């Protein structure tokens, strides 16, 4: 049987964390795929296509999230999301050595 579930751990790298606008970008990409996408911060697992649930994760800079996709094009979905979070960093700046 073909493997349909993919998983990756991504780290939030932009300074302001997963606030509303990044959460919006995340779910916009997630919703382009038909596969189910879940995101976990270790404590809670939420629907990666729901902006309500994603933003409620309140992931700050440095938080590691486990993203899991299951279903059609799961692999592409994971890659796209990984790119958004870690490479593009939601088009936002990284922290400037600021103290938390």
């Amino acid at each position, binding site marked *: 049987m073909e493997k349909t579930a993919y998983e990756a751990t991504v780290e939030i790298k932009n300074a*302001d*964390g*997963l*606030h*509303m*606008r990044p*959460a*919006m970008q995340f*779910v*916009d990409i997630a919703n382009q795929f038909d596969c189910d996408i879940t995101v976990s911060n270790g404590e809670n697992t939420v*629907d990666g296509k*729901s*902006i*309500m*649930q994603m*933003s*409620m994760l*309140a992931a*700050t800079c440095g938080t590691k999230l486990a993203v899991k996709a299951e279903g059609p094009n799961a692999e592409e979905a994971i890659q796209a999301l990984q790119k958004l979070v870690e490479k593009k960093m939601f088009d936002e700046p990284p922290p400037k050595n600021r103290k938390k």
Partner: protein
Amino acid sequence: MEIKKGIAVSPGVSIAKSLIIDSVDYRIPQRPIKPSQRMTEIQRVRNAFKEAIDELTQLGAAQDESETSRIKDIFAVHLRFLHDRTLRRKITDLIHSECVIAEYAVSTVLQEIESHFSNVKDAYISERAADIRDIKRRLLKHLLGPKHEDVEHLTEEVAILARELSPTQTAGFNREFVKGLATDAGGRTSHTAIVARSLGIPAVVALEDLTEIVRGGDTVIIDGNRGIVIVNPDDETIRQYNEYSREFAELEYRLDAIREDPAVTRDGAKLTLLGNIEFPDEAEIVLQKGGEGIGLYRTEFLYLNRPSEPTEEEHYEAYAQTIHVFKKRPVVIRTVDLGADKYTQSKRFAPEPNPFLGLRSIRFCLQNLTMFKTQLHAILRASVLGDIRIMFPLITNLQEIMQAKMILHDVMEDLDEESIPYNKDIQVGIMIETPSAALTASTLAREVNFFSIGTNDLTQYTLAVDRGNELVSTLYSAGDPAVLRIVRTIIQDAHKAQIDVAVCGEMASDPEYVMLLLGMGIRTLSLTPPMIPEIKQIIRSVTIEECNRLARKVLSMNSERQISSYLRNAARIVLPEAF
């Protein structure tokens, strides 16, 4: 059809569509529903989401491309929330499992999310609670009908319903369209009552859960004579009320006929009837109703609904406009009475634990001299235009009068230096509205030209009762023997010192108290404009002799209940139509 009983605080009858406005937070009706109604409520949720999405899409499209992308982003985020299926499911699940109405479900679910955000430690994320609040408000707006922000832009006649109305909210009322007021809380002297009477529209308060029963847009009859609100009346009831309101209008019409007649008792004692006003354009109403001047010009309106303090020119304009209507007749301007119920505590000043005993009124002015002097400067400048008088509120001791007069003197010197003319003999008076001022009235009388008894605060401070708190508001009565004795002391001390004494509190516009006040020696009343004809009619129907007798009798009574019923009966005999 549902009939609710409350307290009638402003006479008249109105039949209009309801507009529910929120006081501090949205007040959400919490009505249980039958399982069979759940689909209807779920459909209402769907509609509200759809309307909110349409509205946001339009708002987003209306934003200029050049506009900072931030605003567009905010709208975009809100739209994602409205499209979020899991959010919608959470709401509809709640309706399913708990059998609650749409408003309640929306409010509960979003409240939960909001507090989740508020509790996040990261400041940037916790601030997002404001977005959730905004989404909640938008959805509720579509569920509950037009809201507060629309009050200033009304295009059809409405009855305003609220848990309670704040001065800030009522300041925006357009009297052309606001036909009646009804609130869950409040008493005879609550702000809602005062505003309704000065606008001349019917009002009923203390209706407890009215806003939970009514939906925005429902037809309501507000019967400010009997203290009844009827929700969704049937045709027969509407017909009866149309007739009733016509009869009431006829009484008003008959009272209008005595407008030009003097306020003289049958045995020839002449009274002066003045109006209480809040806004300059009410001066005209006072004149129409037969008032002979302004006995209380509240100036707080200048400070409401605005981010900054009014300029001296704005003060001056407001006073000049009013005195222009009255020419040589008296206009008593009360210096600003901010604080406590008069100003949103949380808005500009640190909230006080006990605002009514705190930094309010003259105390506030004496600690904010720049603001105080600006107002006095404007009043003095306007004083050459007519008979303007100054009145200081909430005096509690002699020192405050001396201080206030000293500051007034400073401002006069400034005007002298600037060569600006003003009335050097301007009359200065004080409000007697605290027990301490009443008990030292003989001393205070030496320093001022007149007293005006503010019976609302005097009653509240004498009886230690918050008039807006429905749990104890039944204890609040100007007819309490303690209040009447204190009022008598003030009048006697003013007479001994040979200075004028007026009553400007709610007592002056209450038909039941007129004879008593006359009997206690009052010859000047300052009252809410719509009540002037009725009070005048009573004065013209009585003799001082019988008023004196009534006062002697009442002052010998020991219970508020006995006094109230005695006064009511006496007034009923004099003017039966008013009851």
